[in-house]
């Protein structure tokens, strides 16, 4: 059982890292500020979610597991509030005077 859970952790964390790599590739490749924000928020949010999911079996209790989930939720909340604000600033700066 422990081997299975360790395997799950490895797969999920590795998948999470892949999404962080993809987010960084998008940051470098995408053509405009708002598209880069899509990469930074969506791919990284999923990456962090998968890493959290992978670490849940290793958390050693309900409270540490909840703490991991809360960290993911706080990262989502921060991204969801700041992302649209930066997109708005980028649009207003790009707009013709």
């Amino acid at each position: 059982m422990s081997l299975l859970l360790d395997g799950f952790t490895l797969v999920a964390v590795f998948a999470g890292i892949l999404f962080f790599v993809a987010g960084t590739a998008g940051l470098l490749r995408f053509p405009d500020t708002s598209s880069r924000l899509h990469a930074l928020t969506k791919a990284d949010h999923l990456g962090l979610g998968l890493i959290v999911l992978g670490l849940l079996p290793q958390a050693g209790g309900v409270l540490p597991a909840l703490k991991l989930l809360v960290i993911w939720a706080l990262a989502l909340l921060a991204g969801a509030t700041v992302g649209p604000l930066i997109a708005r600033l980028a649009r207003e700066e790009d707009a013709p005077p």
Partner: protein
Amino acid sequence: MAAAGAPPRGPTLAAAARGAAFLGLWVVLAGPAPDGLVVGLLAAGFATWASLRLMPPLPWRPRPGALLLLVLRFPWQALRAGTEVALLALDPRRRPHPGMLAWTPRLKAGRAQDAFLAYASLLPGTLPAGPLDGGAIAIHALDSRTPVGEAMTQEEARFAQAIGADG
């Protein structure tokens, strides 16, 4: 009917619920150790006061079933959103077709609309980018060839129903 002189029931309940939620958050983040709990109680009290000042309670009645569906659907949406972006970023044969479009929300300007726009920024392919003239919202789409506006309207209806802001 409230007894004469008693504070209205709604705000007291809201304060109690928010205070309990903040204290719960503290316990999860800082642990249940009794010596830290005093600081936690103070922090939760201050957070409750600030949240009531900044965000007075509204008469929304969330529908538990619809809210649960929305929450359960979210991991699937996050998976779709992340995979879509990752494929675009990593596959050299694909490239984004970004574009800005004007989308008219059904929710009135205010907290429910703000909450939905924050939520929509986590959904596949859409990123709200501020208000436009005439009540429309600028939406940055990663693939502007897809029917982004219709998807937003459908999601908005689900969201409004879940938080009870559609009445």
